[in-house]
């Protein structure tokens, strides 16, 4: 059985996280992703032995091509002309300077799809700005909005927007492939990681423009809906006073019925029977007292037991899981084999690991997880498969020093 994207050829000039995550998803789905790297560029997150590289570059083949050498560019141009998709997340204009921009390549390959995942998109006064995910989080409002009242220095604790830019890049590529199926022609996609990030505050931005209300950080409260309790509450069982050893449970009573069920679980404490907690709106008005009361109950309980009791009673609740919980204890992830070691050891790192594609195609399962590759590890196979180069031609290219 083949994977759904078998036969699609992707030439991948991306680096760090956002772009490699887009092509990782497509590689997991069977596309032939050729990761272009070079010895000179293999530093930091571009070093094949760096954990960051190991995480985002499985299921790709590796081609070493030193694009700083003019002699490399004809080979690269030929690869672009054979590709279904060319993707990069450089600053705007890099591929054009190398002579492999969309306008240059589409003459020979009108079906090609180019996706440029720059930080700010093409054009505009900020188009040359340098961004990483924390930059985008800050500029897009995500940092300001993710926190507690009065704090604008918290934000999301990981590079959310990098992952999302990657996922949106994958959506864009697949949509462009569908359009090509219909029209016979490729196109260029300009993806601004900043615009992806701003998009996530969609309802808050509509509220600002329609009602002149500017959203502010709300902690774990829902910003616009009267729902309470709705928060993370401390539990018993901390192994130490360190933050990483704390245990918490999230509880979200989305309806009055769920609140009534939670009251029963808490053995109907006197405070909870006060009529001010009878409706969602009055619970929100008295949130501090409500949260304090719920926390007084949870702090005496084991987090897993609270979750299980709540869920059994129809109250949405879940442990705040950290990495150790997810890897070592989570029964759902264990059951699905979500986290696993990759079969073939990495030549320099040894054992490497993968989280599965969270999409299960029943007819075309995506169960192949090939380790990330060393620089140029697949030079010969790629040049044979894509360009039908002979062994002599490949030997000459290697001797010329471009395949490094």
């Amino acid at each position, binding site marked *: 059985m083949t994977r759904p*994207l078998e036969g699609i050829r992707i030439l991948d000039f991306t680096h760090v996280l956002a772009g490699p995550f887009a092509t990782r998803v497509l590689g997991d789905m069977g596309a032939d992703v050729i990761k272009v790297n070079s010895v000179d560029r293999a530093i930091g997150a571009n070093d094949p032995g760096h*954990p960051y590289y190991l995480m985002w570059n499985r299921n790709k083949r590796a081609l070493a091509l030193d694009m700083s050498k003019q002699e490399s560019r004809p080979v690269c141009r030929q690869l672009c002309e054979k590709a279904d998709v060319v993707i990069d997340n450089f600053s705007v204009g890099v591929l054009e300077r190398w002579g492999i921009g969309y306008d240059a390549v589409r003459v020979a390959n009108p079906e090609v799809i180019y996706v440029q995942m720059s930080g700010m*998109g093409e054009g*505009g006064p900020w*188009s040359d700005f*340098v961004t*990483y995910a*924390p*930059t985008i989080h*800050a500029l*897009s409002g995500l*940092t*300001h*909005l993710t*926190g507690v009242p009065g704090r604008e*220095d*918290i934000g*999301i*604790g990981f590079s959310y927007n*990098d992952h999302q830019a990657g*996922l*949106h890049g994958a*959506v864009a590529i697949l*949509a*462009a492939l*569908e*359009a090509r199926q219909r029209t016979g022609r490729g*196109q*260029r*996609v300009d993806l601004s990681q*900043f*615009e992806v990030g*701003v998009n*996530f505050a969609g*309802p808050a931005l*509509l*509220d*600002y*423009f329609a*009602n002149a209300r500017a959203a502010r950080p709300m902690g*774990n409260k829902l910003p*616009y*809906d009267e729902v309470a309790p709705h928060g993370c509450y401390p539990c018993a069982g901390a192994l130490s006073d360190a933050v990483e050893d*704390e245990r918490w449970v999230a509880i*979200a009573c989305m309806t009055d019925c769920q609140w009534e069920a939670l009251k029963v679980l808490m053995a109907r404490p006197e405070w909870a029977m006060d009529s001010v907690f009878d409706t969602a709106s009055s619970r929100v008005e008295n949130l501090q007292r409500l949260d304090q009361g719920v926390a007084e109950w949870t702090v005496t309980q084991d987090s897993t037991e609270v979750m299980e009791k709540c869920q059994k009673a129809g109250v949405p609740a*879940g442990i*705040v*899981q*950290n*990495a*150790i919980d*997810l890897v070592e204890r989570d029964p*759902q992830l264990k*059951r699905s084999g979500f986290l696993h070691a990759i079969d073939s050891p990495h030549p320099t*790192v040894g054992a490497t690991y993968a989280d599965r594609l969270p*999409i299960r*195609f*029943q*007819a*075309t399962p995506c169960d192949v997880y090939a380790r990330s590759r060393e620089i140029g590890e697949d030079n010969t196979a790629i040049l044979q498969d894509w360009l039908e180069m002979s062994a002599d031609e490949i030997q000459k290219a290697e001797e010329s020093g471009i395949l490094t």
Partner: protein
Amino acid sequence: MTDSKGALAGVHILDLTDERGIYGAKLLADLGADVVRPEPLDGDPLRKRGPHQAGTPEGTTSLWHAFFASNRRFFAVDPSSDEGSEQLRRLVERADIVLACDRSFGVDAADLNAAQTRRPELIVVDTTSFGRDGPWSEYLAPDLVAGALGGFCATTGDVDTPPLKGFGELNFMVSGAYIAIAALGALYHVRQTKVGQRVEVSVHECIASCLEQVFMCYWYDDLLPTTIPGLPRRGSLHWSNGYAVMQAQGGAIMVTPTPDLETQLLWLVQEDAHEDLLDEKYADPENLVETVQRVMEVLRKWVSTREVEELFFEAQSRHSPYGWVLPIEKVAENPQLKARDWWVSYSMGGVETTGPGAPYRFSETPWSLGPYGGPGADGESILADIGWEGAP
């Protein structure tokens, strides 16, 4: 919409999603697919989600719904009636793709298993919170709970706050993006083989797959200089210790000495703010952890003396990826978004409001936004599409 010029023009989708999948249906609808969203006769419960347009009664113009249910055709139906269930089945017959979430409106009546038997080319994207089986498979998980179990909350917050969720529906926007990928991946396969399939998406796995350092620090802690496997929430301080939000004059700014420590050091020297950073010990790669920590200390002190806007633009002019922490009203006025003509007009019941535009720009098949309709607004055209005799 039906007259789309978008990338997915001509693709018919039935949207039976709830909060967990509605963003995926939005992505596909905004790319030009014809997406029909059935709703109860008294309206989609998600139309009650705030914020609402001021001056309109709750349930009529939800800005939340207008954003997430953009570019849909709305169809009011009673799945418990013979007529309604037959209408749903005919909508399935017409669809290339059905997006479903377990327990969501219309899924049972649509009889998707039978439809796939009749039409092998049909794609069904079946979303659950935790998968079809397992001890948590029946668990209820709104965005907060999904983010807690999925690993988002443990990373977010500070030592003096609880673990935090993101603002809005950030977890379900991840599952939504994966749902769109699942649908389009399966559609590509149909175009090659004419064979559809059922595709399962677990929201829990979606969230867990997008946690950057969380699994990396667990699996590869021996390869990383500064991390621990259970890295706790710690405000804005990045797992690498090299990015943090700092307080400047007039606002906060995300500051980092990456990607080139020497560039940052030169800037500090020019400002005479480098303190002891020229000490040889900080040039030794063996002392990287100590160096980064000291650089961040010096930066924090220096940043506190600088005006935020000026600092941000100067950093960017030096190719340092600083990020000014902007509140929503500043985002709304952003000159980059304005120059790229990013904002679009949302038409809601005859009222026009500015709102977010596309997350990507296609050169040949433009993204577009059609008017947003009320409950069941497109019933007449949808009944005509399915050949329903007695259509009003």
